[in-house]
């Protein structure tokens, strides 16, 4: 009995193969996008965790200076002599060719076992080789590949290290980082002898820092991943619309069969169990397919994501995906759970309906106007929630909550809005056919509303994200032009060479501007410090957001500093606020400049003040002003004169191109997810039209009978689909603008620390409009084609037996 019952249930799908395909592919697609995003995020998180775990930062307490600056290793010796079991670490960045490497110097002899991921005693290294110049760099396999042929110490490979990090001996690292006798922090061995002298007596300038539960990287990149997650969720939600509508229809269509099964004695419990089993089988199959597809999507997207993360945050994520059962298990689980949730109300109805309830697929598709009103009220409430969250909430999560509430609210209001629009269309139209067209479209609306809501979500996400990206791009390009005024950028390799290059250049160019820099930690976060010369290049071009009138004079005289927008927002600074610098020195803030694409806070002071306050500042880089047409010649001469590598002398155009490339790659992922979401929405419309087409014969037959040809009817069907898509697109524009505004003014500020002006790009909307109408027409094409092939007998039958 059970087996027969199951066969009867499944036979429905056999007769409705397309419906079946829609259900499966909708669910698979939704699962795919969701798990692709999760897989990418997990890959990145694992990489950050590895970075955090290097030398036990995630498990060991540490001693650091309160301002995070390096300190002399005599402090380390003093603590050891006072009985403290601590181990020194020096950390810093160094460039090898085009690769920026995080150098981590440790003392393998005192390194606590909790911090020793890499056994330097292992074959192929050995303590002697590790600590004796030139030392050894222990790096991840992909970093080793990137460093091939560069002038680094010999490389050894270990999977325990995150990409972009080199583990080496502390002595080797001090030399490479040009910081002899300096350490960044001390790792505290967990079991300390009780006799050690108190910290305040031995090293009063050091403070204990708890193990870093969250790394700098995961904090910096959190917004980026939240962004991706939001997109994954959107895609999944759109996918569920399809599943919900497909399952709802299938249940209604099967009511006669269910009635028969009950009538021949299949117990209700057994029936419900069979239907749940059927759903489990279907969703598991679709989930598995989705997970496999998601893996493919993630593999395709990951290199772009990795490039974005490197460009934006300096975060290193491997470009290859590893298989994480947790991610795929979760993807499968969410597919099954989403399906069951979509089906719950149907199952409930079957459980509670009378034994001989009639099947009403048509009625199912015609929810009442009052239901639409109720839904719209819910939508309005959500919009209010969105507005409140944007006004009152702080932080990224509130921002995304506002975003989600706004999108969902707008989607819920859509059917009523469309209904009103169609009503208006009917009132304004003349002629029987036109009036029938509007009325029939309006009557169809409930059956299509889920698909149209999905379309609205996809379109407004597209319009909104598109506006955000384009606004960002426009601002960014203008900003690059301002910021990158000098014609050449030169990086020298040593202090001595730096001086020679400066002399050489000063005789051959209009100006040589030092770009010397140091690093500072305030409130535990790294802040870049740049020293600049007093020169018209800065006065005329630097992209200031606000400043006191004589800002550049004061910077030149060492009486003020400039801060980037990120730092200003993060630390809530105002002009005139005093910024603490190295030691006890501090200077007032005299200006704020925009600094897009930089994850770190930055301050700029006069180059003399920099040298005075940070004697250890790196003095290797220069910007060169020269007539643009002479720049290539000078660059060539300079490389030849000092044997500088091409990447050490870079012209403005190359820097711009590189910056733009980073920018484009950053949003490549967003664009890809956008297109995929739109694809899912298109599929949703196709699925809905397909299912409706089977039921609409009763409406079409009378119209056909009164003289309209099937061909004309089919055309009208296509037109209807296009009209609905157009109206939805019209509604999507304001929603998209709202979305863009939230992204630019709320999310970006929270996530990156910069506020961007919003620009409008109507041409992009036109493109999107055409895309939406085209996909709607495409979706209507097949059902319309079927209609033209209907035999008159089918249509006449409608009158014969009233269904």
């Amino acid at each position, binding site marked *: 009995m059970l087996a027969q019952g199951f066969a009867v249930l499944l036979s429905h799908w056999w007769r409705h193969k397309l419906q079946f395909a829609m259900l499966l592919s909708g669910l698979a697609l939704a699962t795919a996008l969701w798990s692709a995003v999760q897989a990418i995020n997990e890959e990145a998180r694992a990489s950050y965790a590895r970075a955090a775990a290097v030398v036990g930062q995630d498990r060991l307490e540490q001693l650091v200076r309160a301002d995070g600056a390096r300190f002399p*290793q005599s402090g380390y*010796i003093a603590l*050891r*002599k006072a009985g403290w079991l601590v181990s020194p670490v020096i950390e810093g960045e160094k460039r090898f060719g085009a690769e920026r490497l995080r150098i981590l110097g440790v003392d393998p*002899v005192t390194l606590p076992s909790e911090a020793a991921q890499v056994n330097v*005693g292992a074959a192929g290294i050995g303590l*002697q080789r590790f600590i*004796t110049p030139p030392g050894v760099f222990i790096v991840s396999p992909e970093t080793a590949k990137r460093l091939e042929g560069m002038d680094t110490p010999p490389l050894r490979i270990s999977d325990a290290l995150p990409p972009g990090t080199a583990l080496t001996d502390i002595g080797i690292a001090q030399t490479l980082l040009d910081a002899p006798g300096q350490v960044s922090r001390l790792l505290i061995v967990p079991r300390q*002898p009780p*006799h050690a002298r108190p910290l305040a007596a031995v090293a009063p300038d050091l403070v204990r820092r708890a193990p870093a539960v969250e790394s700098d990287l995961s904090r910096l990149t959190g917004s980026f991943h939240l962004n991706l997650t939001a997109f994954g969720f959107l895609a999944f939600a759109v996918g569920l619309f399809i599943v919900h509508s497909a399952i709802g229809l299938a249940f209604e269509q099967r009511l006669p069969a269910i009635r028969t099964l009950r009538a021949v004695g299949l117990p209700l419990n057994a029936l419900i169990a069979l239907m749940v089993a059927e759903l489990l089988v279907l969703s598991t199959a679709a989930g598995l397919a989705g997970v496999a597809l998601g893996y493919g999507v993630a593999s395709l997207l990951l290199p772009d994501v990795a490039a974005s993360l490197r460009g934006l945050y300096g975060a290193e994520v491997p470009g290859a995906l590893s298989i994480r059962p947790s991610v795929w298990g979760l993807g499968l689980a969410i597919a099954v759970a989403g399906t069951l949730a979509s089906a719950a109300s149907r199952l409930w109805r079957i459980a509670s309906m009378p034994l001989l309830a009639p099947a009403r697929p048509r009625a199912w598709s015609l929810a009442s106007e009052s239901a639409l009103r109720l839904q719209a009220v819910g939508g309005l409430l959500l919009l209010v929630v969105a507005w409140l969250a944007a006004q009152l909430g702080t932080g990224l999560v509130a921002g995304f909550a506002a975003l989600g509430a706004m999108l969902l609210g707008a989607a819920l209001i859509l059917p009523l809005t469309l209904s009103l629009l169609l009503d208006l269309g009917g009132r304004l139209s003349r002629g029987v056919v036109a009036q029938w067209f509007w009325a029939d479209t309006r009557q169809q609306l409930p059956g299509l509303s889920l698909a149209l809501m999905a379309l609205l979500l996809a379109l407004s996400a597209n319009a909104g994200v598109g506006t955000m990206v384009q606004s960002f791009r426009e601002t960014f390009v203008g900003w690059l032009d301002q910021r990158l005024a000098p014609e050449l950028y030169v990086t020298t390799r040593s202090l001595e060479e730096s001086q020679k290059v400066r002399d050489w250049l000063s005789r051959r160019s209009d100006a040589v501007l030092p770009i010397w820099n140091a690093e500072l930690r305030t409130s535990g976060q790294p802040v870049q410090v740049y020293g600049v010369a007093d020169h018209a290049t800065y006065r005329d071009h630097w992209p200031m957001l606000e400043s006191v009138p004589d800002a550049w004079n004061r910077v030149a005289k060492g009486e003020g500093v400039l801060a980037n927008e990120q730092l200003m927002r993060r630390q809530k600074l105002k002009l005139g606020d005093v910024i603490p610098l190295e030691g006890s020195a501090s200077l007032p803030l005299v200006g704020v400049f925009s600094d897009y694409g930089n994850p770190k806070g930055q301050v700029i002071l006069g180059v003399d003040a920099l040298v005075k306050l940070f004697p250890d500042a790196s003095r290797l880089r220069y910007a060169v002003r020269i007539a643009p047409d002479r720049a290539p010649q000078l660059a060539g001469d300079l490389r030849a004169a000092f044997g500088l590598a091409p990447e050490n002398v870079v012209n403005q155009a190359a820097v711009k191109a590189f910056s733009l490339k980073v920018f484009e790659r950053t949003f490549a992922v967003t664009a890809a997810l956008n297109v995929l979401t739109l694809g899912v929405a298109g599929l949703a419309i196709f699925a809905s039209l397909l299912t409706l087409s089977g039921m609409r014969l009763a409406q079409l037959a009378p119209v056909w009978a009164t003289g309209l040809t099937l061909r004309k009817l089919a055309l009208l069907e296509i037109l209807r689909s296009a009209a609905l898509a157009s109206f939805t697109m019209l509604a999507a524009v304001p929603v998209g603008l709202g979305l863009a505004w939230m992204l630019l003014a709320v999310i970006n500020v929270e996530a990156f620390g910069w506020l961007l002006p919003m620009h409008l790009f109507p041409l992009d909307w036109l493109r999107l409009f055409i895309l939406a109408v085209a996909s709607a027409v495409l979706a209507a094409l097949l059902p319309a084609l079927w209609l033209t092939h209907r035999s008159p007998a089918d249509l006449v039958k409608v009158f014969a037996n009233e269904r």
Partner: protein
Amino acid sequence: MNVRAIFLMLLMMAAPALAQGFAGLGGDAQGFAAPERGVALSFPQDHGAHPDYRIEWWYLTANLKGADGKDYGAQWTLFRSALAPEEKPGWQSPQLWMGHAAITTAERHHSAERVARGGVGQAGVTLSPFSATIDDWSMTSRAAPPADELSALAITAAGEDFSYALTLDSHGPLVRQGEEGYSVKSAQGQASYYYSQPFYAVTGTIAAGGRDIAVTGQAWFDHEWSSQPLAKDQTGWDWFSFHFASGAKLMGFRLRDAGEGFTSATWINAGGTPEPQLPGALKVSPLAWAEVKGHRVPVRWKVSLPAKGIEVTTAPVNEDAWMATQVAYWEGPVRIEGTHPGVGYVEMTGY
């Protein structure tokens, strides 16, 4: 004294190929200086470090009696291991240092370990005045010139669950082991430079098991350096330092190999005059074994030196005197009975 070197971990880290003999002590001495017969030791210079030799140690063991009447033992050791026969400034120094300290009571054996790189000031040995340190542990001269720098010492060390501070005053001369300080370690001629100061009287305080205990007693100091003290087939050693009630001392060891092993001993009379014994003159044999921290080690020994009429047995203050350090070994105080009663220390490696 003998080959009390224990440098396993560090040496093995340095060169995996050296994993021969106990703690890599049987490796080749490429580039390092080798001890030569007939070179006279000279003090105070030779109290200091010899960076061109591969290994070196300053080793002090004390048999103590508490104010409570119980027997205690204390150990303080600084090892030096060189990755290369040279000294360089800062972190480039190839000199590695390791400290071991222990307190033995009848109830428990407490031990601790410290490791450090040379060149940065964390550990090392300096002269005028003599001072051997690693972290907060130190062995420092209290001697007033012109007395020998080692004639009076202060030592301190602390671990997680113990600490001690002892003052030492010698009442006898430095003793050169072997042939005027040239101590042969195998039939193939492996050797080290080696001298001792076995005549210390000790007073001080030890803290262990939550109690401070005032102690007095006697201590034995060894300083030894070499580059290849073991033959390749030697796998460990049993080493003995005895303070007899008569005031005489005996240092003896057996290096174990596949065959009979290699024994050597020095009889030191109460006046401090050493009488080196011929290889093989010393006979040692285990009387009882025990399982200590997963290692089966002899805990009672019969030690005889017929040439001196010595036939004694040893009994440990605590059978479980296992040094839970990176290179693990047994080192603890013993009571001596037989023809020459007294107290002493036994060290056993390679079990």
